[in-house]
């Protein structure tokens, strides 16, 4: 009987979490980015606009289901589902609190990474099957981008696995009893955030959808609930998985002051999602070549150096490697941030703007 109870709980969590995130986060985006850009955002439906996502959801459900003429019908219908499977499956190994995990896999990190790469398949299929040039460009962009940013992402997950000495997410949380890994490996955390934005197609890296260039990218031809699938479930489901993984790897998972509980985990997820929204309302979009350059010329070498030095320190000081690793990581993250200080270039700009009073 316990098995069935466990199964039902698992299904409920796995389906409810992405669905809930698809309802809550778009609303949060609209409200928060509304406040950041000095406007109100949706505030008419329900108290403070809280029912707005429900209204949107209903509208999307009731809309006509359009499949473009000359599209590949089967793939066109399958693509959102394939892209949606990832968050549902990946959520099953996140430890929500002490002993509360749907599946305690001992290769949990590999599993997360493996299913993280699945979304790209759905997006590529969507881009291809739509028979639209914008969609195709968007799909191809997303493949290039997500595959490139997978590499630094994985390198940083390996760093965490080395620090813990295990691939199980439960052990990762267990190892953060004294200190969270964000304090030990801030460099890995920064790279994880940046690569995550690219994985999720969020704003500085939202080229696959790029509404001002490619209309809607891979989802140009989708309408109604199929669009809802992509916009809500896939994007925000993935964002949830990404934040859950990030919170587990770097922010101590369900641990927190007083007592560890799923509440702390959810709070950390919200903080990470807030970072996503914050980026969204502040940054313009990169260009595809700049994006690839950034992955291959900056993030990957950085991660490799980090990986090498961390590994070396672990071998040299097998008993007490955390302080030196933390020292190295803090120094390099500060150097990294200084390198990209806008101040350096600002002086150049002011020099360049000469005023001519003719």
């Amino acid at each position: 009987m316990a098995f069935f109870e466990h199964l039902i709980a698992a299904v409920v969590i796995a389906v409810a979490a992405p669905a809930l995130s698809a309802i809550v986060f778009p609303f949060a985006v609209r409200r928060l980015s509304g406040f950041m850009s000095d406007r109100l955002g949706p505030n008419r439906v329900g108290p403070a606009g809280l029912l707005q996502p429900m209204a949107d959801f209903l509208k999307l459900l009731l809309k006509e289901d359009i499949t473009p003429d000359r599209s590949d019908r089967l793939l066109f219908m399958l693509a959102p589902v394939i892209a949606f499977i990832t968050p549902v499956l990946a959520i099953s190994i996140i430890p929500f609190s002490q002993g509360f995990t749907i599946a305690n896999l001992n290769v949990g990190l590999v599993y997360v990474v493996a299913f993280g790469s699945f979304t790209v398949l759905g997006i590529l299929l969507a881009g291809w099957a739509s028979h639209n040039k914008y969609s195709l460009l968007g799909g191809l962009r997303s493949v290039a981008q997500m595959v490139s940013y997978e590499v630094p992402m994985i390198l940083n997950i390996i760093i965490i696995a080395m620090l813990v000495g295990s691939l199980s997410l439960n052990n990762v949380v267990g190892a953060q009893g004294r200190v969270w890994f964000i304090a030990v490996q801030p460099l890995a955390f920064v790279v994880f955030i940046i690569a995550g934005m690219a994985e999720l197609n969020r704003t500085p890296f939202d080229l696959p959808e790029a509404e001002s260039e490619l209309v809607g990218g891979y989802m140009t031809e989708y309408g109604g609930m199929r669009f809802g699938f992509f916009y809500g479930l896939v994007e925000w489901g993935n964002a949830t998985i990404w934040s859950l993984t990030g919170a587990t790897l770097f922010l101590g998972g369900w641990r927190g002051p007083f007592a560890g509980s799923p509440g702390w985990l959810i709070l950390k997820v919200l903080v990470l999602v807030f970072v996503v929204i914050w980026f969204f309302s502040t940054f313009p979009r990169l260009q595809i070549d700049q994006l690839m350059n950034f992955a291959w010329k900056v993030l990957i070498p950085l991660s490799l150096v980090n990986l090498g030095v961390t590994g070396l320190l672990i071998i040299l000081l097998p008993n007490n490697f955390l302080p030196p690793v933390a020292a190295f990581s803090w120094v390099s993250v500060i150097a990294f941030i200084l390198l990209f200080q806008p101040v350096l270039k600002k002086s150049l700009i002011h020099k360049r703007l000469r005023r001519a009073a003719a």
Partner: protein
Amino acid sequence: MVLNMGPQHPSTHGVLRLVLHLDGELIVSVDPQLGYLHRGFEKLAENRTYMQFFSMLSRLDYLAGYFMEWAYVRAIEDLMEIEPPPRAEYLRVIAGELNRIISHHMAIGDYLLNLGAVTPVLWTFRDREEVLDLLELLTGQRMMYNFARVGGVRYDLPDGFEEQCRKFLKRFPAMIDEYEQLITGNEIFLARSLGMGVISPEQALDFGLSGPNLRASGVPVDLRRHNPYSVYPELDFEIPAGANGDSFDRYKCRVEEMRQSVRIIGQALDALPGGPVNMRIPPMLRPPAGESFAAVETGRGEWSNYLVSDGSLRPFRLKLRDSCFVAISTLPKILPGNKMADVVGITGSLDLIMGAVDR
């Protein structure tokens, strides 16, 4: 791959259609197709009396419609050899500079929206609303003003305008600083704008660009200073110019011009003389036969009218010269070799408005 971008596309500023030949993400050639908004203004002018045509003018460049009226009345005044009273000239300058500010608001916000930033456009729209309020107070309309008249302007200043305008002028530089804080130092914005769509000074003159697009290339030609009209010679302002002619310089020129507009409006309010704001002119205008040419510097560059009159009630020929038409004609020359994302980036930085292009 041939990509047919527009006329229905989120960032083609109306109904511009670009036929792009792409090699992957790289642009091989561009062929702009115009005419989706062609309403035949030049022909319509020939079939209407001078004043009947007047109300249509601000529909050309609908984001800064006052400049079109200004150029038109100047062409007629030139033919009739009348000069409006000084107070009217100052009011024209005030309305014109307020229009320049909203035009640049739109240009900056839209450019950043094209680059994928959501917030700047909302911030500029927030402040644009204040200027629109001022213009509504001054002219009675937010966008289609009908404010200029042959021999003056329609209304004198309403009560409270000067006070409200001065209050706005005091606050506005801080608002511009706010945009600059958000945009100018942004690493990604710099990566997307520095060195993109470079136009050298010789090219800019050869292409016939004007306004901020020309000045960004380092040619400090501004008709307000260069070919002075109205009371601009009496006002003290600078002409910001770029050095590299890239998208960043075009953006920066617009920002600096907004600061200069604040200065100009302040001085115009200070120096505002008394007296009438318009003069008695015959209800049915009948300018003597002849030709006249009048140009004004709009937010987007040179807007000029070439008016041929045969002494009748209607213009014989009215040629409307628009700077966005010229700016689009440069696209086939500067876009090839850039990436797909720069199509919207560079067109955004050129600040096009299709209502004026297609006429």
